[in-house]
């Protein structure tokens, strides 16, 4: 039972990677598609995609910090 928190942290880390990877993948796919459809609007699309991308990254980082806290604080 002593190592159970390591188990939880590892599981959580995997879930974070799945979630963040899916999110960023969908962002990149949507951006590539819309730029292919309308190359002249590439700057605007990049600008619009930047902010939610960073918010998503912030959530993933926050989750990783808490996973680290689980390991360190027990």
């Amino acid at each position, binding site marked *: 039972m002593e190592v159970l928190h390591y188990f939880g942290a590892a599981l959580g880390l995997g879930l974070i990677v799945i979630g963040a990877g899916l999110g960023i993948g969908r962002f990149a796919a949507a951006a590539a598609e819309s730029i292919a459809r309308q190359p002249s609007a590439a700057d605007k699309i990049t*600008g619009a995609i*930047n*902010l939610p991308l*960073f*918010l998503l*990254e*912030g959530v993933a*980082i*926050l989750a*990783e*910090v808490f996973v680290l806290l689980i390991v*360190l604080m027990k």
Partner: protein
Amino acid sequence: MKSGVAAVEIVEKSGEFNATELIIGHVSNTSVDHPIIHLPHFFGVDLSVTKHVLMLWIVAVSVFGIITFFTRRYLRQDEPIPTGFMNAVEAVVTYIRDSIVLPNVGKKFVSTWTPLVLTFFFFILTSNAIGLIPMFDFLGVLDRFVLHTSSHSLVNQILHGGTTATANYNVTAALAVITFLAIIIAGTKAHGFFQHWKNLAPSGLAWPLYIILIPIEIMGMLVKPFALTMRLAANMTGGHIAILAILSFVFIFESLFESAAAGMAVGFFVSVPLAVGISALEIIVVLVQAYVFTLLTAVFIGMAINVHH
């Protein structure tokens, strides 16, 4: 990274390699009981210089000195054409003004908020980037082989520096508090004090909705700076932890097989190539995180000025 010096010290001290101790020791701040420079208490606050404070001072002095020197020299010129380093500064300044602040804050308040956002950008970029430069490790090698100072001398104390100041949550929290106050001041300047607080929730809804909406909006107001704090600090810490963990493989394998050859082989074929790759990724992260902090500050200030409800 100063993993080499620190690892040697730890192995010399305890005779055994402990990866967790090494990583935590590198990433966390110096203990307040053994600061680099002792300073007296001031109104109950310990002002002693720890390694993050040292890095903070180095960053503040270098940014202030370099930017002021080149800007003054540029202003003294007869013709307004920037040369050399000023070219780079001007490119960054115009980029931030025209594509970060202007679209978010709007034409009316650009010149009010560009200085703040620019200060954020230069400070965060420099302090992120300085953490990647192993300047104190060079001093450490010099000290070990040439100078031979005692373990309590100033040179030996400074060797514990060389970390990223923005990897400390207290530093980023202070930056985020400035953003938080800037949001309130921006809203107050644009709409007046009471109208700014009224703007937090949209008007003209049925009254039961406000019971849910007002707490959510207040929470959102506080979560914004909290997320800024965590994002910057965790990103800067994460890279260091990853690099140190990968470099620790050398010592872990060395003690696992009890032969230096195993450690060197792992270091040569796995650790060093991976660490180089992650260091390259870190260069991108350094730039992106400085950009993100300034962008989000501009966006939040813009949200307080141009209310969309």
